[in-house]
């Protein structure tokens, strides 16, 4: 309440209260403001569905990542956010940023399946920001560029792909059990940390409860979706760290990217063509503005950040050749003098280029072959592993002998003999152990 005026000052653009989809997490250095709770919470209750709704309006710049620090713990790090109302993700980000203060979590290695859950990607310092950025990335849709700048300072690498791996690992590795226990933990922390703010507490708990409940189930979901996600041509990013909405969202709208600024966009020729069209409509690469292009293109997962960098590359690509054309005109006179010499070297040059082409083609061919081989090998490996697990699932003792035979037979078919056989058995022993 008393914060409201402060909030409006900081948000000259005004906040879209109804825009619950906005969920980017941005750490700005704005002073902490307790947010006007009432407006937000109605949104919170819908947060999960809301988040799932894509195509929400653009977020305001400088969405703030965290809860106001009512607890002095996280104080200076967070600023109140307008986008606050939207997320569950906010809560998880906040939690995550609070984690460094909690030793038990810091000791957790970041990449346990927990990394799928944003709050779990603990560890102070790098991870803190990583998690935020990760979180940021999850909350896709159209994020204004402003959300990005703050994150540019942070090491954004990591955590995201971790979740994929962790999900996939969960089968073979004993990590998940740890993860599953975590959600309960942070709900406790969340409680502790938020106790000061009465208004917040209940709602946060509610949110966290949602998140936590959702997590374990979504761990598995997210692993599947991460696969699908990474396969999407448009989507550059790997698994969103946050479970819950993101996973749900992915199920519902796979093509959309869940990243705000820093997430990479995979530019396909089709996307680029749409870009070029938009640029031409706006009067050429020099005159077009990123905002205008973004509007014209109407591609959901595209952010202004993507467009900006792409436009810059595009301009460079066009500008350079044009300058060389100019300079070549000036060289005309000198060229005419060397015309006879030119002819010979011209032919030699062409021959040299042909040779280069041949070698390059050869390399390309070999790379293709190698890649296909690798894919096939892994596919067979996976198939064998599956058969293997089936066998061992059926009958433990019998399984080992029959599996040996089976894998022996199949291995022979593949032409491997003992090598793969022993490896498979070895792996089996390990999983058993």
């Amino acid at each position, binding site marked *: 309440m008393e914060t409201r005026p402060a909030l409006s000052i900081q948000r000259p653009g005004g906040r879209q209260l109804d825009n619950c989809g906005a969920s980017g997490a941005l750490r700005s250095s704005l002073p902490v403001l307790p947010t006007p709770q009432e407006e937000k919470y109605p949104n919170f209750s819908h947060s999960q569905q809301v988040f799932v709704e894509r195509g929400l309006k653009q977020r305001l710049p400088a969405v703030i990542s965290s809860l106001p620090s009512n607890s002095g713990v996280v104080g200076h790090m967070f600023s109140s956010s307008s986008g606050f109302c939207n997320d569950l993700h906010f809560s998880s980000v906040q939690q995550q940023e609070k984690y460094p203060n909690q030793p038990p979590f810091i000791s957790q290695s970041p990449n346990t399946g927990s990394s799928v859950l944003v709050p779990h990607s603990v560890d102070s310092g790098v991870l803190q920001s990583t998690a935020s950025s990760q979180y940021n990335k999850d909350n896709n849709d159209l994020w204004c560029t402003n959300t990005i700048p703050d994150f540019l300072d942070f090491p954004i690498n990591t955590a995201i792909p971790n979740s994929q791996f962790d999900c996939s*690992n969960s089968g073979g590795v004993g990590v998940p059990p740890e993860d599953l226990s975590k959600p309960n933990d942070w709900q406790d922390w969340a409680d502790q940390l938020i106790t000061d703010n009465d208004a917040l507490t209940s709602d946060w708990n509610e949110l966290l409860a949602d998140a936590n409940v959702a997590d374990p189930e979504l761990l598995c979901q997210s692993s599947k979706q991460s696969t699908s996600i990474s396969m999407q041509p448009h989507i550059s990013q790997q698994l969103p760290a946050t479970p819950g909405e993101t996973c749900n969202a992915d199920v519902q709208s796979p093509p959309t990217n869940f990243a705000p600024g820093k997430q990479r966009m995979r530019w396909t020729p089709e996307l680029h063509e749409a870009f070029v069209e938009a640029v031409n409509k706006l009067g050429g690469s020099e005159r077009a503005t990123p905002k205008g292009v973004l509007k014209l293109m109407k591609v959901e997962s595209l952010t202004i950040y993507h467009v900006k960098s792409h436009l810059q590359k595009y301009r460079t690509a066009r500008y350079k050749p044009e300058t060389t*054309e100019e300079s070549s005109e000036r060289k005309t006179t000198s060229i005419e003098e060397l015309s006879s010499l030119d002819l010979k070297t011209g032919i030699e040059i062409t021959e040299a280029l042909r040779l280069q082409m041949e070698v390059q083609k050869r390399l390309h061919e070999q790379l293709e072959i190698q890649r296909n081989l690798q894919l096939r090998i892994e596919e067979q*490996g996976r198939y064998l592993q599956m058969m293997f697990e089936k066998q061992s699932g059926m009958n433990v003792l019998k399984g080992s002998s029959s599996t040996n035979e089976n894998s022996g037979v199949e291995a022979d078919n593949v032409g491997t003999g003992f090598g793969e056989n022993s490896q498979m058995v070895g792996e089996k022993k390990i999983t058993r152990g």
Partner: protein
Amino acid sequence: MVNGSLDYGKAEAEFMYLLNNEIDKFNAFFMEQEEDFVIRHKELPQRIQKVIDKWGPNGTQPSEMEYKEEMAKIRKEIVNFHGEMVLLMNYSNVNYTGLAKILKKYDKRTGGVLRLPVIQKVLEQPFFTTDLISKLVKECETTIESVFPPLRKKRNGGKMAVPGEGIFKNTVAALLTMQEIRRGSSTYSHFSLPPLNLPDFDVIQSLQVPSPIPIP
């Protein structure tokens, strides 16, 4: 179960963390390059057309000299562009191989079972899905055919151009390295690639620039 202890889980998680960092780097670089290539791939035919329109026989300022010169430049550029794309694919491949070897070693050293599931994930990573680049390469080859003068049967037998330049040199190195890597190993298994035997290995090797650093 092997992974019962927290320590083991932690070590493995750390390993995965590092691995994922590297994979992130690969992806970032790859996609950055891919974006550049997509742009250039679109621009190239337009530039060729511009040159033809301007200095070609039916152009606005027909000039054989200019035309020849510009076309020579473009040829060189296209060939290098083609080379760059192929080298990006090589980058992808080499890194994949590296990851596979690292995982294999990890499993061997620690008795883990990371290799299979992790490599499955790697296969889907953007940096390994090089289909688009491959397609661009093929299209580039078609464009090259159109701008190169028809092939003369008589080849310059004696003098073989030594690739001093970056791209050509790297391409040769890449081919030779590939053969080297697959030559055969002590741990040959079902998951290993068969040896590579380049038919004109001698020719390619002769193209290699001798290393300035003497290797004893």
